[in-house]
């Protein structure tokens, strides 16, 4: 359980980090931020980077601010920092709930939000949140900056649109309207363990009917995504247990799960119904 040898680099500026990564990425060099997924993978020798570019000392990478309707999250913002303290209103409350499901306290103090996104574990809560809310990913390399939309960022199981020489320098989450209602539900076998299925629902209630619904599912397929058919079914209808069951059944029919276990599809339906019920202020089914 000891990592294989590697060379360690600790840049102090973004320019230095990008330049190191440009040089070392072709030689299996990798970025390390919180290291809460990478270091276990190295201990198990599933990952054997030849170089680590440690961004923990890069000035300004811990920035966290609300600007022009976006919550802007820098690459060193730890899980523990994303909550109501970061942004008031429905988004802050949602972040607080989601954060509570991420591993454990000593992991949350060290692991980073952007690191989870770059790692793209299909069971990651932040990946589900980013996919459902329509986050934007700002990435940089020596070649320049580009912005990747959420539906193009996740490419499959632990795979993203990031090139080896690029750093995810900022996640942008849209600040939710004060009228937004959110519901998040995750099932995992043990407290703090990886999700078996997780769902996030965001909706508004206008004159008794659902408006602007967003429904996302994680940990079931090879990447988190919005369930557009179920969303279309929910829009304009009054919330009810029967409607949410119908949405879950519709969603299930279109799922391509990571394993053949029908249990996971049952879980998917259940977490979808519970997330929707929570968003609508109804008791959990």
């Amino acid at each position, binding site marked *: 359980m000891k990592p294989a040898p590697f060379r360690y680099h600790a840049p102090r500026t973004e320019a230095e980090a990008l330049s190191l990564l440009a040089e070392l990425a072709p030689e299996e060099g990798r970025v390390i931020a919180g290291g809460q997924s990478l*270091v*276990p993978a190295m201990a198990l020798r599933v990952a054997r980077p030849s170089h680590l570019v440690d961004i923990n000392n890069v000035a300004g990478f811990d920035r966290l601010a609300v600007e022009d309707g976006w919550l802007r999250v820098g690459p060193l913002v730890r899980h523990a920092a994303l909550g109501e303290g970061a942004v008031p209103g429905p988004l802050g409350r949602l972040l607080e709930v989601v954060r509570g499901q991420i591993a454990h*306290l000593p992991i949350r103090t060290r692991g980073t939000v952007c690191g989870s996104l770059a790692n793209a574990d299909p069971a990651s809560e932040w990946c589900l949140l980013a996919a459902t809310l329509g986050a934007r990913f700002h990435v940089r390399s020596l070649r320049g900056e580009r912005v990747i939309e959420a539906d193009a960022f996740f490419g499959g199981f632990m795979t993203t649109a990031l090139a080896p020489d690029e750093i995810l320098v900022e996640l942008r989450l849209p600040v939710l309207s004060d009228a937004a209602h959110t519901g998040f539900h995750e099932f995992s076998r043990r407290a703090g363990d990886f999700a078996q299925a997780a769902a996030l629902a965001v909706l508004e209630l206008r004159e008794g009917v659902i408006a602007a619904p967003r429904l996302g599912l994680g940990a079931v397929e090879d990447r988190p995504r919005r369930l557009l058919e179920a969303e279309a079914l929910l829009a304009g209808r009054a919330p009810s247990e029967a409607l949410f069951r119908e949405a879950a059944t519709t969603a299930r029919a279109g799922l391509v799960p990571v394993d053949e276990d029908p249990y996971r599809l049952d879980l998917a339906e259940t977490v979808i119904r519970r997330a929707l019920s929570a968003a609508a202020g109804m008791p959990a089914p």
Partner: protein
Amino acid sequence: MSDAMHDLTLTLNGQAHAIRVEARRTLADALREDCGLTGTHLGCEHGVCGACTVLMDGQPVRACLLFAVQAEGRAIRTVEGLAKGGALNPLQRAFAENHALQCGYCTPGFLMLGTAILETDPGISDEALVEALSSNLCRCTGYANIARAIRAAADAMSTEGAA
């Protein structure tokens, strides 16, 4: 930077320790093998069990998921820093009095986790305490006595503070 070995100075319980290690040396191994502080235990070595929990700049972290080179310039606290002059601190006493340990393997990690909890949120709710303690594994006690000990230490410390 390109040298395979790194000369570091770690600050452990307020004392400087100069060591020479490979980049792949975890903080947990550096504490035990290079600094002689064997109070920090290693269980799973991949971040699951919490036995190696230490405090870095006041925050609980897994010492097996940090490299020693990353800890330079940070204030690291380990279980060796809790007792003063051979006298157990209130949390350690509470562990003994509440039977919060049997074999003792997980105890240093729980003590450091408990220290972080008491320092950041001494009035923590029962629910939040159980959630925080879910971070570490104990295969002897069943956890109830550990939660009880941390609560007892919080009470003892607030009484001492008020006196």
